[in-house]
């Protein structure tokens, strides 16, 4: 049942400072809305509980992609279309481009923002695995100033984040130090377009000979939040993918991944299927490294 729109208020303060002042004046009262591809669905299905919204869609201060020598900084109001059109992201962060292309459809990508995808905090969201694998940091802003933390610390549990009621995500920064890394990303869903993932894995690895010198794994739907698979990474570090040891390395990696997997049964899949497929994706990535 659709909500009665007259019950909701929406304002659009003219600047980022004005929005932050409004959030600071009445913390928790106003919910930021960017592209609307999540909150408007909630409105249309009668699930939107927040009655007062503040638009941040028009804020130019949050819609930018800035490239430095050692990092790229993406404003939270950057749309998925903006991301897909950026040549530096395309060359340095193909995993992010791929995951942006999975997020909804063209019409949704034209509106939906990176910040919205992160703040909605779904464990199945498309971009977090790539951001986690790339060691992203996230900068939050309120009226008093900014704070920057590793993106691994942003998600607390299912749909819970460290974002305070008076804060917005300002930007996400990705270090540009992955030349020489092999990259992998795969999403398993019911169909190619539009489907929300059952499981997804983004991976980066650097080899020295047959040995894994560095490895970074980010996953969706493996637990109640997007996660970096640190136990699996530890189990793989310095291990050999040579012909004599690859099977043992993969066995140990699959066991480590299972140890940090807490998959759930829900409308999209079963815990058993998710756990099996997560192991298969990891194995597919590891075997691809020897090719």
């Amino acid at each position, binding site marked *: 049942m*659709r909500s009665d*729109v*007259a019950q*909701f*208020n*929406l*304002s*659009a303060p003219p600047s980022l400072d004005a929005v932050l002042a409004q959030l600071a004046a009445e913390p928790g009262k106003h919910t930021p*809305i960017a*592209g*609307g*591809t999540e909150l*408007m*669905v909630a*409105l*249309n*299905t009668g699930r939107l509980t927040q009655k007062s*919204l503040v*638009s941040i*869609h*028009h804020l130019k201060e949050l819609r930018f992609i800035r490239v430095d020598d050692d990092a790229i900084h993406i404003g939270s109001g950057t749309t998925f*279309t903006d991301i897909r059109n950026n040549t530096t992201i395309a060359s340095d962060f193909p995993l992010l481009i791929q995951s942006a*292309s999975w997020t*909804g*459809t*063209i*019409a*949704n990508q*034209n*509106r939906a923002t990176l910040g919205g995808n992160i703040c909605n905090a779904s464990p199945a969201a498309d971009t977090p695995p790539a951001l986690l694998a790339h060691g992203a940091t996230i900068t939050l802003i309120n009226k008093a100033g900014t704070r920057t933390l590793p993106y691994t610390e942003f998600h607390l549990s299912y749909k819970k984040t460290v974002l305070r009621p008076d804060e917005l995500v300002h930007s996400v920064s990705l270090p540009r130090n992955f030349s020489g890394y092999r990259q992998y990303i795969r999403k398993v869903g019911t169909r*190619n*377009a*539009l489907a929300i993932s059952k499981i997804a894995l983004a991976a980066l690895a650097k080899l020295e000979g047959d040995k894994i010198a560095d490895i970074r794994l980010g996953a969706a739907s493996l637990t109640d939040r997007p996660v970096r698979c640190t136990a699996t990474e530890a189990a793989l570090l310095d291990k050999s993918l040579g012909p004599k040891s690859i099977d043992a390395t993969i066995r140990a990696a699959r066991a480590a991944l299972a140890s940090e997997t807490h998959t759930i049964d829900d409308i999209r899949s079963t815990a058993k299927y998710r756990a099996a497929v997560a192991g298969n994706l990891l194995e597919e990535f590891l075997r691809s490294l020897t090719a």
Partner: protein
Amino acid sequence: MSNIHLTVNGKQESLDVSPMKRLLDLLREDLHLTGTKEGCGEGECGACAVLVDGVLVNSCLVPALQVSGSRICTIEGVSTEGRLHPIQQCFLERGGAQCGICTPGMILATHHLLDKHPNPTLEQIQEGLAGNLCRCTGYMRIFESVQEAAKLGSI
């Protein structure tokens, strides 16, 4: 209520509406432009697709206040002086339109696609229209319609 100014199909409009009113409802109820259809109401089917400042969006997911000052193009604004746009003509001739519910969104998604990719590959057509569901045609005739429109250089 909020006072909203916008330009729809070249005509300037000024409306007093709830700021959270969906652009879809603003078009259909306040401006009586019923060519834009509602399908799923969740941004999955594309029946409500329109162009906002030249960009394809699902109008069921856009609050009215966020389009204040924007230029909107709906299916009613695609034809000129009573003559079908070449994209519309191609859909008509190639059987790309059957029951008609998806057609307005399909035409606008095609418009957006050909704007970005004047000579799209089949893969680009499939991706460009992946957000527009059709339950009649099986899509092949729609893809042929888009290919024909591209051949005519219709944008």
